[in-house]
């Protein structure tokens, strides 16, 4: 009878089954083998016979390989098998777990019957997984609602495309100054409507819900005074029409830092919604006042009116509730103030309204001042006026610049595939006026037929069309191209500019996509980016330069320095180099982070999409090695094989780090502060 240690005896007494390995898959029972174990292993006696443990259990047979490795390694501790279920001789299922360990130089295998413990464990996992399933179902419901919302947005953006297109076309004409003003107003307002539609989409999108759920407040910074000014500029004509005076009081201190934690487009909408609401209740000849106050860690923004004040008996929080409307129902759907509330609160602020003692009402919100870290990472206050405004000045300026440029450097053969006739005609007209050769068709099938008959440089492809949608048509065209070796640039047109749409477009084989309503500048820029990168685009604007794609590719393949490449590509335009580098250095870390997350989560689609985006921006700087890596990552994402993505990403990161000092050296980006000071001086000089 073999002797047992106290520990072995203890385990046996607790119902564990212990075996000592004698090699060759043979085991000797240590102590009494419990009946449950004998039933599973189908042992007939309690003799000291050698037991082939693995004979009746494929799972145990597999585990014994790991156990053997462990015993041979002479490592301390134990290795366990994980749970499994075997059947006893009566066919009953028995949950088990095995452990391999070394005791007194003996190779010991312990079997544990988990029947007593499994119920609790099972309950825990069941509850946890039921919760996961419920969460999945909720997400799926949200997604369905989003899709519905996207359909609505799509419908809303269709006529807006036509309106925007009409104004864009008018802006290209030589108009009397008085008419020009109205056209500019039309452009501005259609852009505003577009921004509102997008706002609705973003306010209720999954992204926002995700942010709300996680309590994430983002890292964006917006300038309160800039947004207030923009809103005033935007609404001044509406207030004027109603005979209401709109003013700022007290005057804003331009030298102060009014930056808050939040993003500019949404902040702009908050002001817009409050002004819109105020205008609705303001009598003619009254005054509406916008003001900002510095309250230490917070800024207060308010809009005062001289209207009837808040409805009596209506709790303030109900004013900001979803679908809440005033008694007169003179408002819209009741989304505006609700949007303000959820946005301000998400940014860590508060919002409210009250009837003023002197009459009228005050709507206010308070937002935390942007913290130092965020402020440093974003534009300095003196750069506030460089923020692109959705104002008449900027819009018309841009339009006129393009119209002054006149013809194009390369006449492109463009196929416009769009089912809405007016949009088809307008886009066609805008491109024709630009000097391109345009054909139009109204569905995917016609696009394929046209593609087979003619050669096109660019195909604009709407997503949702009768007979055949744009995604299927794109796939078909890409298939046809495999036999011709040609590649037409296909640009998707979509009413829903979401990352999901982008993914769908790119997966179908599109090269880029444009969101509807299509803006003239963006249309030209996207279409024409086929023939040149943005730097070349600028260069070509000032005069036609012969473009040799083969030479460009060769140059990109060369391992020339970033500085040399940029200099050559921009024709030595330092300002343009600055802009390109600055934009790249700001955006690339975010895209790298997206790629890192996509790889970590094994999300092939997101990897492909992020790598595709980075490829476009990084290629501007030559950077042949980085481009090759990003191209690999994109291909991995597209194929779904992310096996080598980790090492590739690390190579990309080090390549980016290598490029950074070079980029900073060729640009003044490394010296943002001195540039800001210079601007401040200029500005104060102007003020004097």
């Amino acid at each position: 009878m073999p002797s047992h240690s106290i520990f072995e005896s203890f385990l046996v007494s607790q119902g564990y089954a212990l075996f000592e390995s004698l090699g060759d898959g043979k085991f000797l029972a240590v102590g009494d083998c419990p009946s449950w174990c004998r039933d599973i292993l189908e042992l007939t006696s309690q003799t000291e016979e050698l037991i082939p443990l693995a004979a009746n259990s494929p799972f145990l047979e597999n585990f014994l390989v790991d156990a053997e490795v462990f015993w041979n390694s002479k490592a301390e501790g134990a290795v366990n098998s994980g749970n499994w279920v075997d059947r006893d001789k009566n066919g009953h299922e028995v949950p088990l777990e095995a452990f391999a360990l070394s005791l007194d130089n003996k190779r010991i295998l312990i079997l544990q019957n988990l029947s007593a413990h499994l119920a609790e464990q099972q309950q825990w996992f069941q509850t946890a997984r039921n919760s996961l399933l419920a969460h999945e179902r909720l997400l799926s419901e949200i997604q369905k609602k989003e899709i519905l919302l996207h359909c609505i947005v799509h419908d809303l953006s269709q006529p807006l495309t036509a309106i925007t297109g009409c104004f864009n076309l008018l802006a290209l004409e030589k108009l009397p100054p008085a008419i020009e003003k109205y056209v500019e107003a039309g452009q501005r307002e259609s852009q505003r409507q577009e921004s509102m539609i997008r706002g609705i989409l973003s306010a209720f999108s999954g992204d926002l819900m995700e942010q709300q759920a996680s309590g994430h407040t983002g890292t964006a910074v917006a300038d309160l005074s800039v947004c207030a000014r923009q809103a005033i500029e935007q609404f001044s004509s509406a207030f004027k029409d109603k005979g209401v005076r709109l003013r700022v009081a007290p005057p804003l201190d331009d030298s102060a830092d009014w930056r808050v934690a939040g993003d500019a487009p949404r902040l702009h909408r908050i002001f817009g919604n409050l002004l819109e609401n105020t205008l609705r209740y303001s009598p003619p000849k009254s005054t509406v006042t916008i003001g900002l106050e510095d309250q230490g860690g917070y800024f207060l923004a308010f809009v005062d009116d001289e209207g009837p004040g808040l409805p009596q008996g209506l709790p303030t929080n109900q004013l900001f509730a979803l679908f809440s409307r005033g008694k007169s129902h003179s408002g819209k759907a009741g989304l505006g103030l609700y949007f303000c509330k959820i946005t301000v609160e998400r940014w860590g602020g508060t919002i409210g309204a009250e009837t003023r003692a002197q009459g009228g009402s005050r709507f206010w919100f308070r937002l935390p001042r942007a913290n130092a870290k965020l402020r440093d990472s974003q534009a300095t206050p003196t750069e506030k006026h460089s923020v692109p405004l959705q104002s008449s000045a900027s819009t018309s300026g841009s339009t006129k610049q393009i119209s002054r440029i006149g013809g194009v450097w390369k006449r492109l053969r463009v196929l416009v595939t769009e089912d809405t006739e007016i949009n088809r005609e307008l886009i066609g007209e805008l491109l024709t006026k630009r000097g391109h050769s345009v054909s139009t068709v109204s569905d995917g099938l016609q696009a394929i037929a046209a593609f087979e008959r003619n050669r096109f440089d660019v195909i604009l492809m709407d997503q949702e069309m009768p007979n055949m949608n744009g995604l299927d048509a794109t796939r078909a065209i890409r298939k046809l191209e495999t036999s011709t070796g040609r590649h037409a640039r296909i640009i998707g047109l979509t009413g829903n500019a979401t990352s999901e749409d982008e993914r769908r477009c790119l997966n179908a084989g599109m090269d880029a996509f444009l969101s509807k309503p299509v803006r003239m500048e963006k249309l030209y820029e996207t279409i024409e980016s086929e023939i040149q990168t943005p730097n070349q685009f600028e260069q070509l604007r000032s005069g036609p330069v012969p473009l040799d794609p083969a030479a460009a590719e060769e140059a990109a393949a060369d391992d020339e320095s970033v500085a040399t490449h940029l200099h050559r590509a921009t024709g030595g335009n330092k300002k343009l180099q600055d802009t390109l580098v600055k934009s790249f250095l700001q955006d690339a870390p975010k895209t790298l982070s997206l790629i890192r997350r996509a790889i970590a989560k094994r999300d092939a689609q997101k990897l492909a999409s992020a790598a595709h985006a980075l490829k476009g921006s990084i290629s501007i700087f030559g950077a042949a090695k980085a481009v090759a890596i990003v191209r690999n990552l994109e291909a991995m994402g597209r194929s779904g094989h992310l096996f080598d993505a980790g090492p590739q990403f690390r190579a990309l990161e080090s390549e980016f780090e290598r490029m950074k000092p070079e980029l900073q050296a060729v640009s003044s980006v490394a010296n943002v502060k001195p540039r800001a000071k210079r601007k401040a001086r200029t500005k104060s000089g102007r003020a004097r």
Partner: protein
Amino acid sequence: MLQKKICMLGSFSVGKTSLVRRFVESIFSEAYHTSIGVKVDKKVVRVDDEDVTLVLWDIHGEDVYQKIRMSYLRGMSGYLLVVDGTRNPTLDDALALNERVIQEAGKVPAILVFNKSDLLDKWEIDPARESGLAEAGWNILRASAKTGDSVEKVFSQLAAAMLVE
């Protein structure tokens, strides 16, 4: 008799256990009982006039709580990568898991099973994605453990493929 080890792989609650039960015992239960370990079953099938014992390793679904031990795949001749056709994320999870399986076990015959084909009104897998995967070389079968539709076919196709290997 020839024995072939088949692993059932996929996310949790996709129906791996139900497929095995339907195949081995011709039983289906509506109630969802999550698996927390491995259960091994056997069934003899006839392939090309030859009896083959399929040793079915029904491995718990992978999620944040439980990861699959790659040692379970040792000696595997083929596997069924099971997806719940009514839950899109389970396809992404399955494809991610497949990467690790190939890394561990190399290329062996596999079938991508879109289970719950009786719930077509709740189907979430994009047909374009399905055809894309088929074009990429995946052998895809839609099946239903509930109705039994294509369940035999799934196992017999995999058995035939394993014998060819």
